[in-house]
């Protein structure tokens, strides 16, 4: 409905390119170009006295320090991979069922803690594990336990609370919010615990550990960059998930049914296809992607209570920027968001007394505002 209202923006108005209606476009373009020039050429490192001006950043410009620049590009891709894994699950559920699963962040957190408990149980160690204490199975089995657990939780939620009120988007969102409140509170009540399970630590930060063979640096032979193998594995997992989803959605019969269901649910159902079964499959896969993302990112970073909100935000930003319910949109949104977040953290000026202030979350808002101003449905969003 509002799509027609969305056809009113000024870009459809006739007029010369330099008319005042074009002003927002020009300002936005100018800002983007300036940001690129700033990162590539303008910024400098702090002087010997530690003082700086508006051009002072941690590493200086890309021309000045190509190695750091490349590392940040790779870090952004690593973060984008984790974002994509989590957010593609969110986008899959939203795209098919129009369900905004507000419990996605809660499921992410729950999966992370379950995997942590399993890994601790398998290795029998205390809180902190070194990579050489973990073999491949001790990383894979936690994943293979956590993902089905989240799948069951998601399946129960979908069948018990979301199936019978299909189409009532707001009500479904409110239901998933209620579930997220309960899940977040129960996580604090029960996770993490020590190996014997007697002591609980109220949602403390814990981290999973990558298997030992990933704990080394790979020489990329570009600008002398040595890069962590674990992070390269993460990028690989992200690409594998993307390719897997693409093959599943575009090359298999189930995927065909899902895409048909996205376009016209009633017609698909009328053709004799059990759309409820398809919904359940997509919902379970979406929840399992949250679990996979949690295990991957918790191995790289950590998990703690409160990150459910952070990852709900991440999924929302990716889906809003990329476009609702599209795998390509999720990929584009994840990459854009990851680059803005990482480059904002490193390439914003760090002058004098203002050394430690982080404005990167404001940049996230700027990104959303820029995209929504020109594409109200996100970059890959459909017009209807």
């Amino acid at each position, binding site marked *: *409905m*509002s799509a*027609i*209202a*969305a056809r*009113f*923006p000024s870009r459809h108005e006739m007029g010369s390119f330099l008319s005042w209606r074009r002003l927002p476009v020009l300002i936005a373009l100018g800002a983007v170009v300036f940001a690129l020039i700033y990162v590539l050429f303008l910024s400098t490192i702090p002087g010997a006295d530690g003082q700086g001006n508006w051009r002072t950043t941690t590493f200086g410009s890309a021309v000045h320090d190509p190695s750091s620049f490349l590392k940040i590009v790779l870090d952004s891709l690593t973060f984008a991979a984790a974002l994509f894994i989590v957010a593609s699950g969110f986008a899959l559920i939203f795209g098919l069922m*129009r369900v*905004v699963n*507000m419990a996605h962040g809660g499921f992410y957190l729950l999966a992370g803690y379950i995997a942590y408990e399993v890994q601790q149980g398998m290795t029998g160690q205390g809180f902190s594990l070194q990579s050489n204490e973990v073999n491949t199975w001790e990383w894979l089995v936690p994943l293979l336990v956590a993902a089905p657990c989240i799948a069951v939780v998601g399946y129960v939620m979908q069948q018990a*609370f979301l199936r019978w009120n299909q189409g*009532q*988007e*707001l*009500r479904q*969102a*409110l*239901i998933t*919010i*209620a*579930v*997220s*409140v*309960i899940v*977040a*509170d*129960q996580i*604090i*009540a*029960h996770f993490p615990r020590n190996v014997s399970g007697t002591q609980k630590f109220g949602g403390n930060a814990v981290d999973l550990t990558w298997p030992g063979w990933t704990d080394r640096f790979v020489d990329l032979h570009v600008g002398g960059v040595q890069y962590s193998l674990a992070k390269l594995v993460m990028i690989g997992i992200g690409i594998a998930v993307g390719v897997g989803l693409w093959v599943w959605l575009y090359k298999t019969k189930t995927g065909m049914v899902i895409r048909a269901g996205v376009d016209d649910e009633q017609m698909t159902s009328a053709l004799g296809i059990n759309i409820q079964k398809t919904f359940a499959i997509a919902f379970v896969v979406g929840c399992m992607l949250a679990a996979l993302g949690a295990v991957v990112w918790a191995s790289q970073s950590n998990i703690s209570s*409160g990150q*459910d*909100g*952070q990852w*709900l*935000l991440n999924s*929302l*930003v990716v*889906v*809003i920027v990329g476009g*609702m319910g599209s795998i390509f949109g999720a990929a584009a949104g994840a990459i854009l968001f990851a680059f803005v977040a990482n480059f904002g953290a490193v390439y914003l000026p760090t002058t004098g007394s*203002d050394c*430690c*202030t*982080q*404005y*990167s*979350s*404001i940049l*996230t*808002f700027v990104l*959303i*505002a820029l995209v*929504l*101003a020109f594409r*109200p*449905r996100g970059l890959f969003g459909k017009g209807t």
Partner: protein
Amino acid sequence: MNPKTWTLRQQVERSIAAVALVIVIIWPAAGWSSYWSHTILLETFIFGMAAASLVFLSAYGGMVSLAQTALFGMAGIILGNLATEGGPGGTSKGLHLGWDPTLALVLTIVFTTMIGLIGGAVASRSSGIYFLMITLTYSVIATYTLGQVTKISGFSGIGGINRYTPGWIGDILAHPNRLYYIALGVTLFAYALIRYLVRTPFGIALQGVRDEPVRAASLGFNVPLHRTLAFGFGAFLAALAGVLYAWFAGQVAPGDVDLPQTINLLIMAVIGGLLRIEGAWIGALVFFLMQNYITTSTHVPLLGFGGTLFGGSFNTLIGIIFLAIVVVSPDGLMGLWGRLFQTRRRAEGGERPATPAAEPAN
């Protein structure tokens, strides 16, 4: 104002409202429980107003906004930055501008409304579930921004705001009843303002935009502009509540606008019902009653638990209650109340229908 022309429902509701108004006006003067008047009722007024801004946007604009808590908290942070002074006896965080509190108060409301207008403009071409998602990102971004930008807030926020009230209000720490009556007055003002606004041409057009955005657009109404202005008005209401909260709590921190708080405000609005303004305050009252009494009670009848549920805290309980309300009555308590009269009407064979102008939300 002739009670004989009112429907039964109007008679009942207006009688209850009048009695409730008299009770809350005489409460502190009558010397009844000051814990109630200085905590439960005061919080009900303040958060009820913030929830009312959410209900206003939802009921009349068709926009369920989760950014109201963020705007509410930002008003408190802005006030703290403008009004508090640094140095000995001052607060440690913030800009310490130390401006005149009355000027700071006005500027706070203006700035917050402007932030609302900007955010509303960005989201104005979306509606429904998209609007919910976009405003939720506003809320989370606001939390992280306030936490990260140490110049204006930092994670501990700004304290001691309640010592910088305008001279015409005086010392609310020594005279807490003043804050009570101010909050009550502002609440009544906000309620009257919403009821007035929705009957103006703007309010009617807004409801047209809510129901039929395409038709409203083809009739020449600027749909995004109406949504933006409505969001700005919602931000204005949230700013009023935020200022009162800053005076009430003294300290405003990013923790006051984080995701759990955002959801709490939504829970209040949903308990009351997203379709009627009055529900906001009823939902807030129910929420604070539960928070104050169920969590401390060790003998809750029928439930039989000592403040915990499956090992969880109050949040598990409120989550389950919230879930039950959304499943049973998505329109909240006001929806249940409305249904009560619908069944009556069916049983008695019909009543005088309420005119649309008098009952726009029903």
